[in-house]
């Protein structure tokens, strides 16, 4: 367990994620106060990655729940394995075992834990490990309100009730990270239960460090150019300004091509890894690729 936010910063950096002060404080608090952490921000700023790196660091199993509209208890918490239950019924009948049993005794056999299919939430609550797992509830804004209400219940008590079996409570509460792209507002009650952090695009120096860490083949010079170019792209009023994920993709593409310095031709041929809309690519070309590279190089090497 970390004792200061700086511990968190160091640990995350050691496992491949470079957080800013705000994020490491939020993560620290969520761990010591045992509260879920809600991360909101643009797509591709590294929200999901936080949960993954937490799992690598703490050694807890990563349990991921991808939300979508219409997700319900049988997909997120638990379900009964009906086909096996039916088979069990038939088998009991065939061997004559069921003859001596009352209906309720038979029912008790069927609703036994071995026919229970644990889904992400129950798995995270009912873990039997020393290390609490990391529960990632991804894109919670895609689920609907009813599910959010249920989630609130689970996250405030860290327990789940299965009517046929009883209550499952977490021995050690899992580390919970929720992410949202903000396609709609997450309900206030759920937000109140969580600690909240708005994830921003990293600043220039941090982005350079991220590129160097994630794509070690890329040398300092190219990393600075790439980060500079991405910073310029973000200021162009694009439909989808590139996130860190795109920066890394781009750097990887450049590394794979053996590029050591940006030039117009390589930028033109790799632009698709950073900009995913035709209109955005056009706007960038109008802005001028040569200009982009020039600005990027200046940004990358200005004294600071």
């Amino acid at each position, binding site marked *: 367990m970390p004792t*200061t*936010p700086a511990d968190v910063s160091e640990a995350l950096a050691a496992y491949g994620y470079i957080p800013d*002060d*705000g994020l490491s*404080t*939020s993560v*620290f*608090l*969520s761990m*010591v*106060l045992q*509260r879920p*952490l809600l991360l*909101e921000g643009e*797509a591709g700023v590294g929200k999901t990655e936080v949960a993954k790196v937490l799992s690598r660091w703490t050694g807890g199993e990563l349990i991921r729940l991808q939300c*979508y*509209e*219409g*997700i*319900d208890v049988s997909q997120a918490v638990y379900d*009964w394995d*009906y*086909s096996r*239950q*039916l088979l069990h*019924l*038939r088998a*009991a*009948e065939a061997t004559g075992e*069921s003859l001596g049993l009352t*209906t309720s005794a*038979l*029912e008790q056999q*069927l609703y036994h834990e071995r026919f229970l299919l644990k889904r992400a939430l129950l798995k995270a609550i009912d873990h039997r490990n020393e290390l609490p797992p990391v529960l990632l509830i991804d894109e919670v*804004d*895609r689920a609907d309100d009813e599910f959010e209400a249920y989630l609130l219940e689970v996250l405030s008590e860290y327990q789940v009730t299965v009517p046929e079996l009883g209550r499952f409570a977490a021995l050690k509460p899992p580390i919970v990270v929720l992410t949202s*792209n*903000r*396609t*709609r*507002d997450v309900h*206030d009650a759920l*937000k*109140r239960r969580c*600690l*909240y*952090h*708005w994830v921003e695009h990293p600043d220039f120096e941090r982005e350079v460090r991220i590129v160097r860490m994630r794509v070690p083949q890329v040398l300092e010079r190219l990393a600075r150019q790439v980060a500079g170019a991405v910073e310029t792209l973000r200021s162009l009023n694009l*439909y989808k300004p590139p996130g860190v994920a795109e920066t890394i993709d781009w750097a990887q593409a450049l590394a794979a091509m053996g590029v050591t310095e940006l030039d117009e031709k390589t930028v033109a041929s790799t632009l698709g890894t950073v900009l995913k809309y035709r*209109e955005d690519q056009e706007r960038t070309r109008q802005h001028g690729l040569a200009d982009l590279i020039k600005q990027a190089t200046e940004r990358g090497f200005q004294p600071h």
Partner: protein
Amino acid sequence: MAVAFARVLRGAGLRVPLGSVLTFVSALGRLQLGDRDQVYWAGRATLVRNPEDIPLYDRSFHVFWMAAGAGDLPEEEEPLHITLAVDDDGEEGDDSPGSSEASDDPQITLRFSAMEVLRNKDFANYTDAELRDAQELMTKLRFIGPPRRSFRQRRSKRGRRPDLQATLRSALRTGGEPITRHWRVSGERLRRLVLLVDVSGSMEPYARALLRFVHAAVSGRQKVEAFAIGTRLTRVTRELNSRDPDKALSQASTRVTDWSGGTRLGECLRLFNDQWGVRGMARGAIVVVLSDGWDRGDPAVLGAEMQRLQRVSYHMIWVNPLKVSPGYAPLARGMAAALPYVDHFVEGHSMAAMEELAQVIAMDAPRARANGRGGSR
């Protein structure tokens, strides 16, 4: 200290429930109080829940925790200029016509014929009392669009997918023999309705009317998101979600700082697309734009943004109250730029036109689009 800070935040207009203050206090217990940054981030993680509130928090933090060096505060640009208080003037004063509503049957028939007249009257010529009568009429209209198939399934007598859970339950009753089989079919969900309402200049009475009617027609039945567009983009969904429409509207008007300013349609649509629409809010939704299409900005921007919005939406409807003006052709440059990306172009000046709008919204398959329809799940 934490409580005092929470009060400062509340004073600045942030909603800070007690529970959050308690969390803040326990967070402070785990940190070094001497370290400003840690206190700052602890407060942000526990007391702030929307990115829009961050500037407010920053200012309050500055004032409260750094009172000594407050000289370098970022100057607040005083955003709240309410040019026009919506219909507060008439509403309070009309207790007298309101009292006639508590009358018996014969008078109701009388009132109804009065409403027939109302049906075709232009909203711009409405008095507030008439607006209210019309709103009553509107409650009967259903603004509900066609449903779409949901991921969630429900039980059914027949269907394609077996419902093993129900089958098993009944098998228990018949000694383990699955005699009665049960089925599941996909459920249906209502599509989201997104309103983008131009609140500038001449559009203002129509904007009021549309917001009111939509509020009356859908309240509690369908997901509705509402935005005011004008010189800036303002989300008014929360204000519209309260039960009392008048209160909701006066709340909305305090949010919207530009009733009757100029219009920058294209710019506002771009903001909407970037921050809300294309990210998910408008996907598979029914989008209604109310505007006369007078845009002070570049019509090319408006056209491009309309195209973007249409591509993700299920049905794109443009309501232009000026459409009925004799000899009106969409001459406004903005309107002309937007029209190619509109599935339905309707009037919106009167009750009768609102009924038509309701029908268009409820339409099952909007006009087939030339290049396929993106995004409608």
